[in-house]
C-alpha cells in the first residue's frame, strides 16, 4: 500500500507530480521496467507481482506488445519529500502513432529505454521524435546491462548522438535485477518538469485512452490540464458536445481506486456508463457540462483507416457470428470500421478498415481466438482516390470498385518510412526500396556502423510483404517505422483474374502498371497449382480491362475412375462417393469451375503473411 503521507488524488499539489512514459522497442524491457517501478514504489508487492503487470490482454502478453495504454499512479518518497509519479504506458506500434502521440501529450517527460545489446530501433526513434515534438524531457536509459552481450558504451554514444546529450548522462539499468532503477526514479523526479495548469479555470482533460470493460462500460483515461473533475458531475465531450454523467472518477494504483476527483496535472480514469469507445475518443477534451471550457485542447483527430481487407467466414453460416463479433470489437476499438460486402468467390463478409497491418492482424486474431471464427482475409489494400476525366471523384477501398471509365488521375497514400540498420545493408535496403517505388529522403549515420534511412514509399507497397523482405535482406537487423504523409499520383491499374472467362473478384488487385504483368503471371501460376483439374480445360487469365496480360491453362482431367471394386465391397465404393460429394459441396463455383475453398485461402495468403506482423 501507498504510504499514508502520500498525496491523495484530487488534492495533489501539481508541483509534486511527474507525468512520464517509457519509449521503448518491444523486447527492450519496458514492461519489466514498469513492473520494477511498481515494486519499488510499493504499489505492488512481490507476491502480487504478475510478470508484466501492465499488459492485460492475452494477445499482448503473447506478442509482448502493449496495445492499450494504461496509467499507473506511483507514490514515491525520495529525500524528504513525497511525490506522485504517473507512469503512462504507450502503445508500442507503428499503427498506433496517433494514440502514442496522445499518450505523449499527457506527459512532461519520457524515459527513452534502449536495449544495451541492440541499440535503438526505428519505431523507438520515431516515437522519440514524436516526444521531442511534444517538448518532452528525455531521460536516456540503457537497459539489460547485466547481459553479457551488452555494449553500454557504444549505445550510450549512439543515444547521446541522437538526443544531443553527453554520453555520461545516459543511465544504465537492469530492469530484471533492479539495478539502477531507484536512481532512474530519482532522475525522473529531478529532471521531469511538474505539470502546470490553472486550477481555477473550467475543467479541461485530455483523453489519452479509452477502453471497453464488460462490467463497467467504457473506462476513459484522462490527463487533467486545467480545473478539477469530480464524481457525479456532468461532463461534456468537446468534439461532439455529448454530455454524460460521471459515475466514477479515480486513479489506477495499480487497480482502479475511486477518488474524490482529479485535479490539475493528475492522471486518472472516468466511468460514465457509455458502452462504446466511439463516444469517448482518444484526443478529445473532457470538460464540465455546466460552465465548461470553450476551447478544446489541440490535437484531436478522427481515427482514419489506412488499410482495408475483406474478412469472410470460411463457413458461410458463421456470417451472423462474424457480424456480432465485429460489433463487440468495435466497442473497444474506435479505429475499426466495417461494412458488409459480398464476393462471388467468398460469399458474404465484411470490408474492414484498419489503422495498419498490425491492427488488421490483431483484429483478425481476436476474431478467431475470442469468437472462435475461421476467417479468410483478402489481400490488404489501401484507399485510392480516383479522379475521372469528367472530374468525378471515386474513393476506392476495394479493388472491385475501381472504375472502368476514363480515368484522369489515381492518387495513392504514401508514408514516410524510417529504416534503421547496420550500415552493411545500405545497398540491399536501397535496392528493396527502389523496387517498391521508394524515394530516398535522407540518410544519417547514428553511429559508426548504424544508419537511418528515410524514404517516401507508397503505403500499398509496404502493406504486402515489405517488412518480411526487409528483414530477410538484412538478416533481421533492420527495423522499420512509417507514418502517413499524404498522397501522390501514380500510374495504377486494376488487374483482374479470370477463370474460364469469369472474373474472380477476390483476386483483383490495384497495382502499378509496371508491376501488373508480374502480378498477373504470379497469380495465374499460383492458381494453376491450386485449382484441381476439371473435366474441361480451364484458362486462367490476368487482364487489365479487356487486355489479357498473362495466361495459364489447367489441362482437362482425363481420368477419374476407380478401376476395380475391391472384391465386392460396394459399401466402400458408395462411402467414397458420399465423401467425394461432400467435398464437392465445399467447392465454390466460379462459373462452371469448381474451386476448393483451400485454393482461395492459399492464393490469398501471401507466403509473406508474416508481413502483417511487423515488429
Amino acid at each position, binding site marked *: 500500500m501507498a504510504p499514508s503521507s502520500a498525496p491523495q488524488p484530487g488534492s495533489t499539489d501539481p508541483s509534486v507530480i511527474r507525468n512520464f512514459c517509457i519509449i521503448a522497442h518491444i523486447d527492450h524491457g519496458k514492461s519489466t521496467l514498469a513492473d520494477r517501478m511498481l515494486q519499488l514504489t510499493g504499489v505492488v508487492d512481490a507476491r502480487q507481482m504478475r510478470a508484466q503487470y501492465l499488459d492485460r490482454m492475452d494477445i499482448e502478453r503473447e506478442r509482448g506488445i502493449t496495445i492499450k495504454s494504461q496509467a499507473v499512479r506511483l507514490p514515491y518518497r525520495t529525500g524528504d519529500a513525497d511525490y506522485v509519479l504517473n507512469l503512462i504506458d504507450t502503445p508500442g506500434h507503428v499503427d498506433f502513432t496517433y494514440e502514442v502521440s496522445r499518450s505523449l501529450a499527457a506527459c512532461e517527460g519520457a524515459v527513452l529505454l534502449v536495449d544495451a545489446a541492440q541499440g535503438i530501433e526505428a519505431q523507438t526513434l520515431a516515437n522519440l521524435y514524436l516526444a521531442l515534438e511534444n517538448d518532452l524531457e528525455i531521460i536516456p536509459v540503457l537497459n539489460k546491462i547485466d547481459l553479457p552481450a551488452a555494449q553500454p558504451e557504444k549505445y550510450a554514444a549512439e543515444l547521446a548522438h541522437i538526443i544531443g546529450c553527453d554520453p555520461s548522462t545516459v543511465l544504465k539499468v537492469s530492469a530484471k535485477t533492479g539495478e539502477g532503477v531507484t536512481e532512474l526514479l530519482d532522475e525522473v523526479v529531478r529532471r521531469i518538469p511538474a505539470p502546470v495548469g490553472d486550477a481555477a479555470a473550467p475543467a479541461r482533460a485530455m483523453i489519452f485512452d479509452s477502453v471497453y470493460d464488460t462490467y463497467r462500460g467504457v473506462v476513459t483515461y484522462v490527463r487533467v490540464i486545467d480545473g478539477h473533475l469530480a464524481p457525479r458531475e456532468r461532463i461534456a465531450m468537446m468534439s461532439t458536445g455529448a454530455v454524460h454523467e460521471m459515475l466514477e472518477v479515480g486513479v489506477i494504483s495499480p487497480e482502479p481506486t475511486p477518488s474524490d476527483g482529479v485535479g490539475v496535472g493528475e492522471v486518472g480514469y472516468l466511468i460514465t456508463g457509455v458502452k462504446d469507445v466511439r463516444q469517448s475518443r482518444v484526443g478529445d477534451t473532457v470538460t464540465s457540462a455546466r460552465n465548461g471550457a470553450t476551447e478544446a485542447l489541440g490535437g484531436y483527430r478522427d481515427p482514419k483507416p489506412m488499410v482495408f481487407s475483406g474478412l469472410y467466414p470460411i463457413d458461410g453460416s458463421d456470417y451472423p457470428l462474424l457480424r456480432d463479433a465485429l460489433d463487440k470489437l468495435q466497442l473497444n476499438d474506435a479505429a475499426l470500421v466495417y461494412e458488409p460486402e459480398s464476393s462471388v468467390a467468398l460469399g458474404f463478409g465484411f470490408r474492414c478498415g484498419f489503422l495498419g497491418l498490425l491492427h488488421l492482424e490483431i483484429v483478425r486474431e481476436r476474431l478467431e481466438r475470442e469468437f472462435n471464427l475461421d476467417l479468410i482475409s483478402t489481400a490488404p489494400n489501401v484507399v485510392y482516390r480516383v479522379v475521372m476525366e469528367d472530374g468525378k471523384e471515386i474513393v476506392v477501398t476495394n479493388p472491385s470498385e475501381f472504375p472502368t471509365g476514363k480515368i484522369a488521375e489515381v492518387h495513392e497514400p504514401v508514408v514516410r518510412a524510417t529504416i534503421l540498420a547496420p550500415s552493411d545493408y545500405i545497398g540491399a535496403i536501397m535496392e528493396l526500396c527502389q523496387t517498391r517505388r521508394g524515394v530516398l529522403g535522407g540518410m544519417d549515420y547514428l553511429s559508426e556502423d548504424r544508419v537511418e534511412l528515410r524514404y517516401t514509399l507508397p503505403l500499398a507497397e509496404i502493406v504486402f510483404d515489405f517488412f518480411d523482405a526487409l528483414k530477410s535482406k538484412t538478416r533481421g537487423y533492420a527495423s522499420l517505422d512509417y507514418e502517413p504523409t499524404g498522397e501522390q499520383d501514380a500510374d495504377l491499374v486494376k488487374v483482374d483474374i479470370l477463370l474460364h472467362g469469369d472474373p474472380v473478384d477476390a483476386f483483383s488487385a490495384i497495382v502499378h502498371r509496371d508491376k501488373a504483368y508480374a502480378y498477373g503471371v504470379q497469380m495465374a501460376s499460383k492458381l494453376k497449382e491450386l485449382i484441381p483439374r476439371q*473435366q474441361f480445360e480451364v484458362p486462367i487469365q490476368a487482364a487489365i480491362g479487356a487486355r489479357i496480360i498473362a495466361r495459364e491453362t489447367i489441362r482437362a*482431367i*482425363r*481420368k*477419374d*475412375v*476407380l*478401376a*476395380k*471394386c*475391391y*472384391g*465386392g*465391397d*460396394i*459399401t*466402400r*465404393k*458408395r*462411402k467414397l*462417393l458420399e465423401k*467425394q*460429394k461432400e467435398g*464437392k459441396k465445399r467447392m465454390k463455383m466460379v462459373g462452371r469451375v469448381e474451386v476448393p475453398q483451400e485454393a482461395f485461402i492459399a492464393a490469398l495468403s501471401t507466403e509473406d503473411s508474416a508481413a502483417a506482423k511487423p515488429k
Partner: protein
Amino acid sequence: MPSLPPEGDPAPDDGALPSSALEGLGSRPFGVYVHVPFCSTRCGYCDFNTYTAEELGSGASRSTYADQAVAEVRLARRVLGDVDLPVSTVFVGGGTPTLLPPGDLGRILAAVRDEFGLVDGAEVTTEANPDSVTPPSLAALREDGFTRMSFGLQSTAPHVLAVLDRTHTPGRAVAAVDEARAAGFEHVNVDLIYATPGETESDFAASLDAAVASGADHVSAYSLIVEDGTRLAARVRRGEIPDLDDDVAADRYVQADEALTAAGFAWYEVSNWARPGGECRHNLGYWRGDDWWGIGPGAHSHVGGVRWWNVRHPAAYARRIAAGLSPAQAREVLDPDDVRVEHVLLRVRLSEGLPLDLLDRAGRAVAGRAASEGLADSAALGEGRLVLTRQGRLLADALVRDLLG
C-alpha cells in the same frame, strides 16, 4: 479386399437376415464367392486380405481352411432357408486359391453343389497364380467342376513385374492359359495391370499382345493403384519409385481399349473386355446388384439389399466358425435411396448401360449433357440408357457425382 472394412451395424451371431432381404430370393441370379486368403509372398502393390505363412500366425492354416469354408456354405443354406436357390456362378478368389491342398477347392465346390445345387451351365471360376498350376492340377480342377480359370499375367515386361514384386516369369502366364485350354477350360481370363511406373507404351503393347495371343477369351485390365499401407506406397513416398501419372493411365486405357477391340474383344465393364460369350457372369452380378454370398475371411456378401462382410483375419474367422457363429463382422441394410445410388454407381460402368429411369430429372439433364460432350452414347440415350463412351468411362466417377447431384 480393402485395407479397412467399412463401419456398419452389428450383424447377428446366427447370421440371420431381415425378412425383407429374403423376399424374392431365387428370382435373381445367385452367386457364391469364396475368398482364399493365402499367398506364398505378398506383392508390393497388394492390399488384399491375404496372408503369407509367416503372417498367418497360429490359429489358422491353409490345411484347415476348406472345412471352415464348407461350414460357412452350410450356414448360408440355413440362413437363406429352404427356398430353391441354385447357384448361377461361383468365383474362388484370393489370395492364391491354388495354394490350398489338392482337392480342397473341389470339396468347397461340392459343398456348394450339395447345399444349393448349380444351374445348368453354371460359371465356376477360380483364380490361379500361373506358377501354381500344372496340366495335371488343371485337369483335376476341371474334373471337380470348374469351368473358368483366371490368371494374373499383369505384364510381360520383367522390369514392370519387378516393380510389382510379381514372382512369375513373364512367359509362364501365357503357357498356363494354353494348359488350361488343353485341360478343357472353355473360358480363361488374364489380368493385366497398366500404368506401373516405368512401364512404356510398348511394354504395355507387348502385354496386350500376349494376352490376346494366349487364347484367353477375357481380359481384365486394371490401372495400378498405390494403396495406403503397401510396400509400393512406402517406396513411392521415399521417392524410390515415381508416383503414378493419371494422364499416362488414361493413355494406357485408350491403348488397351483399342488393341482389345481390334482383336475381337468388346468392353462390357469399365475394366473388363471379353470375346463374345466370354463375359464373366459372376463379375456382372456385382455391377447389376444381384445376390451373392461371400465365403471366407473378409468376404463381402449382398442379399436383397443387405450388405455384410466377414471378420478379416483367418484366425478370427476360424474361431467364429468353430463356435458355430456367423463370421459376419458387421452389415448394413440399404435404404431405397442407397439402393438407387448403388445402381447408378455400378450399372453406369456396364456396356448394357444405366436405365435412365433410375435418374431424377436433374440427373437425366446431366446424362444429356454427357452425351453432348461425348461422354455418353447418344443413340443409347435415345433408347433410355446411359452408355459411356471410352472418354466417358475414363471419367465415370466424376460423371456419377454429377448424375447424383
